[in-house]
């Protein structure tokens, strides 16, 4: 199983470390040639405007888009979610994304850094038993404003300023994404789920409910 981490900017090292904890050696992806033979790719946290520009100037945008269209399993965290979403608000008008996750996100929708926070978020059965939660760090995070009908919500969180619980982790087909940074905490459930999705994409089986242990 060959897993890449987009390594143009952001917290690449934490994702490589998370993969290593799960006995997977990740590959840093900086050019189109690094995509060869990959079965899964992580889009890390970082600045989505910077990542979007660098994907273009590094000639990675089209090859990566084609790879996702032909079945590459992808996992985006924070800026990675922005790059995967169908609809992005509060971004730059020329900001490009892959538009493979049916949802709409508001960039920095939780506010500036002073509103960045950590909290325990409620998780869906794919990530744990009823009532279970996972620790989550939100850094100038994108706010998921709309979730498409075919999208599974894997975790939700409320804020004091916004008591409505919002989707903070999503899955649709071979696309997994979170508004928070699972790579910054010790909880590996989302990375495990991603690896299970890669595994079942390779064997052609549907993704079942993985073991919900951290």
């Amino acid at each position, binding site marked *: 199983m060959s897993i890449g981490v987009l*390594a*143009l*900017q*952001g*917290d*690449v*090292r*934490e994702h490589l470390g998370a993969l290593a904890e799960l006995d997977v050696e990740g590959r840093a992806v*900086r050019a189109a040639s690094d995509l060869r033979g990959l079965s899964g790719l992580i889009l890390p*946290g*970082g*600045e989505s*405007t*910077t990542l979007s*520009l*660098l994907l273009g*100037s*590094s000639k990675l945008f089209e090859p990566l888009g084609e790879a996702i269209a032909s079945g590459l399993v992808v996992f985006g965290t*924070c*800026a990675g979610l922005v790059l995967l979403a169908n609809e992005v608000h*509060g*971004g*730059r008008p020329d900001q490009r994304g892959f538009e493979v996750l049916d949802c709409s996100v508001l*960039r*920095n929708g939780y506010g*500036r*850094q*002073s*509103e*960045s*926070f*950590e*909290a*325990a*978020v*409620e998780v869906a059965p794919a990530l*744990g*038993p009823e*009532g*279970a*939660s996972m620790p989550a*760090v*939100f*850094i*100038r995070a994108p706010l998921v404003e709309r979730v498409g009908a075919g999208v599974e919500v894997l975790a939700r*969180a*409320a*804020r*004091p300023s916004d008591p409505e619980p919002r989707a903070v982790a999503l899955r649709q087909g071979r696309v997994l994404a979170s508004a928070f*940074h699972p790579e*910054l*905490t010790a909880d590996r459930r989302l990375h495990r789920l991603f690896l299970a999705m890669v595994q079942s994409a390779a064997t052609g089986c549907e993704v079942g409910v993985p073991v919900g242990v*951290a």
Partner: protein
Amino acid sequence: MTESPDTSARTGTFAVKRGLADMLRGGVIMDVVTADQAKIAEDAGAVSVMALERVPADIRRDGGVARMSDPALIEEIQAAVTIPVMAKARIGHFAEAQVLEALRVDYIDESEVLTPADEAHHIDKWPFTVPFVCGATTLGEALRRISEGAAMIRSKGEAGTGNVVEAVRHLRSIVGDIKKLTQADSAEQYGWAKQLGAPIGLVQEIAGSGRLPVPLFCAGGLATPAVVSLVMQLGAEAVFVGSGIFKSEDPARRAAAIVEAAAHFEDAAHVAKVSRGLGEAMRGQELSALSERLADRGW
């Protein structure tokens, strides 16, 4: 795992403060003095901008007391871009830091580029929700700043000179001492703590991990893509470029080239490609010609 989830959100924790520094890694933070410059920086791919009234080269030239920027300028820059906006407070000037926090800047640089307000004390950074970055010339200085609550460390270098020699000295000193520290046994670590003037807990942590507990960025005298590649190969995780961009002949092109060099710092062919025909870099200064070293401010 079955207890009811604690959904109470906590802001300003150390994980949240250092988290933003982690997200800036591999990127370029650019000094800007107007909203238009901030837009140019964002268009070029900057991960963040530092809102200033004067870049360090002009502070050097003009002399006088350098203070926190006008809040109106900071707000204009915040309104102009979607990327994080940082601003500088004077060393020890906790009231300027409180003002910057009230303006909801994303990071405060407690900076030697401004005129220090306190000759004995840096700001106690723990009570703040907003994270701080501080300059350092040695590992001991870096650890003292971290013990005061800094969530990011940058080399001081010698700001406003376009001369990277001091930044390289500071980086080599910090990274070199970390390497040596990993070889020290538990008794020797106490000697290191004494020699560095740093808390033993942090010394022990670094001896085990081989890296600072917060990201290490490089600042001070950076002006070309090749220099960015140099300092990142020496261990810097991201770069601050101050006067180097907007004191050059073609700021937009140079800014974009520097962003590319940070992303591809290990790929010399890529650095060569983006370095072509950038026009004149900032003029720069030999250090022996300086009347005052900004890096000597702070302790």
